[in-house]
């Protein structure tokens, strides 16, 4: 401890270079983590934030809600099979435009029963009533200069909906979500196809009582499965996370190489200390302490920096840094750093204190 700190203090310039490098690497790694999480939310926030634990979807839908159809009869059946709360939902990607404007906007309608647990909290605006055709938009539509009271028109059906409020973190498949009532969706559908029967995309279940649910042509799948099967979601996550962990390892390796070089430069010193009677375990403690201070300190500063910057990013950027993943990455980084510094320790362990005496190499 004594030596570790004295060394760091004396060689401030040298070590602050290493630290600044590590801080930047930390920043990069954490930023990627935020991006991974942000992209994940952009594809799945509506499902992730919903209070449902399981979904029933048709078994030919490859676990993708938008491909699935569940009938009204099946919904009635399910109600009798479980004590958990159940509610039907529809999820449909469409486009709409603001009345009197030409520009089409991508939107995914999430049709829910306004009284059910699938109804997200409204952050701005009045109570949502399912009676007339109204819509709650994700906050990102604020950037399209849509405000409460405006009217939007569904492109395919021409049905007009009044914007009665905004919700936050409602995204599906990189498209912003508009919450509408099941009735509004039915209106849209019958307008497009007069013979349309009432069908749902899925049935959401809140609770764990799923063992007795057995339907023909439909299955119960977990929320996580639904999220992982959203087209693009797992592919995106896999590639970003791979880059992220490669970066973590590369950063730690850089620290290891730095340390190895510094250790090599100090070999004579270590040999002298051994000749003076210093035990290897004290030397190891010195080296590990230094790695801990450098890696831990850089991690800490890097975290502060990244969290600070994430608070000023534009909301259209898919970025969401969370303490959990940031903590795991930081911890992994420090642990990997210690592991790579063992290479330096081995080098120190091998020095013969005899080298301190002249005439011996």
């Amino acid at each position, binding site marked *: 401890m*004594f*030596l570790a700190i*004295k*060394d760091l*203090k*004396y*060689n401030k310039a040298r070590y602050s270079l290493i630290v600044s490098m590590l801080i930047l690497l930390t920043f990069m790694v954490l930023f990627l983590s935020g991006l991974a999480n942000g992209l994940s939310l952009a594809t799945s926030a509506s499902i992730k934030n919903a209070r449902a634990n399981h979904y029933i979807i048709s078994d030919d839908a490859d676990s993708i809600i938008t491909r699935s159809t569940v009938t009204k009869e099946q919904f009635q059946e399910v109600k009798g099979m479980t004590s958990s709360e159940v509610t039907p939902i529809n999820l449909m990607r469409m486009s709409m435009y603001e009345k009197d404007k030409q520009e089409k906007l991508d939107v995914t309608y999430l049709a829910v029963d306004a009284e059910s647990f699938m109804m997200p909290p409204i952050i701005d605006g009045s109570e949502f009533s399912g009676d007339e055709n109204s819509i709650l938009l994700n906050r990102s539509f604020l950037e399209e200069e849509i405000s409460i009271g405006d009217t939007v028109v569904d492109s395919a059906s021409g049905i007009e909906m009044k914007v009665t409020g905004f919700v936050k973190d409602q995204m599906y498949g990189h498209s912003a979500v508009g919450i509408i009532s099941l009735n509004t969706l039915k209106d849209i559908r019958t307008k497009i196809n007069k013979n349309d029967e009432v069908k749902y995309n899925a049935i959401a279940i809140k609770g764990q009582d799923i063992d007795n649910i057995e339907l023909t042509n439909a299955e119960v799948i977990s929320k996580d499965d639904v999220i992982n099967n959203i087209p693009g979601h797992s592919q995106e996550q896999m590639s970003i996370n791979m880059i992220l962990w490669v970066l973590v390892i590369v950063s730690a390796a850089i620290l290891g190489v730095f340390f190895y070089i510094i250790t090599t430069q100090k070999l*004579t*010193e270590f040999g*002298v*200390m*051994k*000749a*003076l*009677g*210093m*035990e290897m375990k*004290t030397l190891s403690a010195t080296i590990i302490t230094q790695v801990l201070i450098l890696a831990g300190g850089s991690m800490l500063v890097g975290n502060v920096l990244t969290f600070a910057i994430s608070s000023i990013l534009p909301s259209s950027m898919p970025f969401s840094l969370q303490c959990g993943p940031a903590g795991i990455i930081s911890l992994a980084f420090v642990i990997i750093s210690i592991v790579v510094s063992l290479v330096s320790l081995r080098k120190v362990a091998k020095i*013969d*204190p*005899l080298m*301190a*005496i*002249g*005439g*011996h190499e």
Partner: protein
Amino acid sequence: MTSYALQLNNISKVYQDGDNENTVLDKVSLKVKPGEFVAIVGPSGSGKSTMLSIAGALLSSTEGEVIIGDTSLDNNKKNWIRVRKEKIGFIFQSHQLIPYLNIGDQLNLIAKISKNKDKKEFEAYADELLNDLGLLDSKTKYPNKLSGGEKQRVAIARAFMNKPDVILADEPTASLDGPRGRQVVEMIRKVVKKQNRAAIMVTHDERILDLVDVIYRIENGKIHDVKSNM
């Protein structure tokens, strides 16, 4: 109890060089009493550094016995560390100070290595040593701010810090000019006499030999000549 600080009894060191045996030291014996300052001189390759390394628990001998204070060295290298820590003070060829420690901390390091808990006692001792060596005013200076002679004097202070049985000095004047080298050896003598410790100095500098008590001349691994100044 023996009255010697260091005894080398019939020390031999043989290196295996292919099929040949290379005898570096051949049955060398040497005894040093507390308060005695001994010089070992001889041409390079004569084995004087090897002898110092064996006496310093840094190198094993092929044959013979090393006794430091009341401890006989065995072949367990783990014990060697303890012997070096407690019973030996080294002065190296070039000072070998730790660059990032100021003079006070160089001595502090020895206290940490020997796990000296009595901070007051050790600080008083450190100050006394620095005072004897004329370094008390430089206590907060770092090695790169010191002259060569001053650095070697710090190294002397460091060697005495653990109150060793024997001081081993390896060519302490090699990196210094004549007058400064002489001054450094005078300092070693001063502290050796004051604290009544034994010291062995390997050197090839004939000009300083009037400062030591006994001179061993070593050639081809054998002690040829012993001369006493006393």
